[in-house]
């Protein structure tokens, strides 16, 4: 049985044609299912919880990366399968999972090619894609063996499933794009400077260092210093933080051109 969770922004009028094309394609592939529309009053977590109480099934998120990340965290460990129909053109998760956008992704859902991926863990909560923070005056302790002391890096990105770059989109051709491997016991730690867009000029992002770690502790050099860690672009967690790979795994429907 298929359950479709529609992102809250899809209620906007400009998406109505895309939504109807997706629904037509799903019907023609004979994979139509129950539709749930997200809103301010209805979150992904409670929607998925309601679905999983009934039966183990395939849940498909129609919408953006953030909602897909939230759905992945909610479905983890339940045995359910998660699919994604990206509606935003610049979806980096669609790029990684090898999914075309809009109604073209319906064929991938129908094919049901699956990959099992792990989740990352920060303190006692899970994350799906990546976490980011400014490494100024921080110390990173890896596997209790060595310390990484950032000196001239402006951003640290710890990746479970994401592109090995700081921006969500890059000018690099597909073949030169690198994604992390979410199927092993390692997290990728990418350090460097993000790219910036000025009026006429474009500053390219700079990748400085790359580490593969199993466990990582982030702490400030001074006790009174506050470090904010952005988790999956949704939540903020304060350091000190312990980061690693979680035991929970999820099954995701992927396309043939996936990067993982």
């Amino acid at each position: 049985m298929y359950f479709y969770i529609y992102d809250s922004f899809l209620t906007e009028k400009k998406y109505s044609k895309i939504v109807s094309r997706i629904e037509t394609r799903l019907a023609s592939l004979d994979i139509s299912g129950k539709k749930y529309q997200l809103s301010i009053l209805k979150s992904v977590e409670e929607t998925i919880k309601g679905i999983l109480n009934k039966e183990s099934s395939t849940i498909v998120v129609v919408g953006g990366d953030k909602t897909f990340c939230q759905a992945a965290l909610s479905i983890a460990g339940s045995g359910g399968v998660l699919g994604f129909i990206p509606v935003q053109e610049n979806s980096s998760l669609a790029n990684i999972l090898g999914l075309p956008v809009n109604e073209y992704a319906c064929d991938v859902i129908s094919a049901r090619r699956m990959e099992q991926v792990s989740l990352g863990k920060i303190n006692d909560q899970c994350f799906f894609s990546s976490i980011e923070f400014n490494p100024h005056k921080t110390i990173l302790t890896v596997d209790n063996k060595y310390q990484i002391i950032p000196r001239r890096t402006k951003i640290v990105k710890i990746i479970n499933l994401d592109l090995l770059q700081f921006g969500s989109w890059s000018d690099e051709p597909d073949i030169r794009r690198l994604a992390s491997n979410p199927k092993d016991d390692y997290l990728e730690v990418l350090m460097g400077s993000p790219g910036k867009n000025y009026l006429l000029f474009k500053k390219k992002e700079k990748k400085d260092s790359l580490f593969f770690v199993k466990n990582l502790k982030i702490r400030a050099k001074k006790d009174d210093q506050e470090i904010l860690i952005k988790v999956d672009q949704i939540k903020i967690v304060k350091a000190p933080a312990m980061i690693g790979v979680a035991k929970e795994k999820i099954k995701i429907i992927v396309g043939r051109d996936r990067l993982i």
Partner: protein
Amino acid sequence: MLGKDSSKVRPEEAETIIGTGVRVEGTFSAVGNVIVKGQLIGSLETESDVAVRESGAIEANLKAKNSSIAGEIKGNLDVAEKIELASTARVFGDINCRVLAIEEGAILNGRCRVGGEGLENYKEKKGKNEEEEDDDSDEDNEN
């Protein structure tokens, strides 16, 4: 690795990069190749290859399969196969490897053991060979 034409990144295949913007302190052990462009203090160990770029500075004992050095190392190098010292390399420590290639201009300040066998093993082997030669000549004389 950050420019390699492959989308999948696996630690055993990919390269750990210690960039110019970081300093690493402690016992650093990696599963794949390691490129050092920044600073490392402690020890460095991998079953694969290590490349120390010109900007790289290591104050550590290094253990690897192959190593190419263009930066500075203060520590001993224990390499299973080949060490390549570029003209900009500055090594202050002992070297143990099977093959050593030194470019003109490289600084090497330490003891070298190249070829996998030490002097004592060499003497033992030479002694055995001489004994065998003596035995052969005795047999010839008897005939």
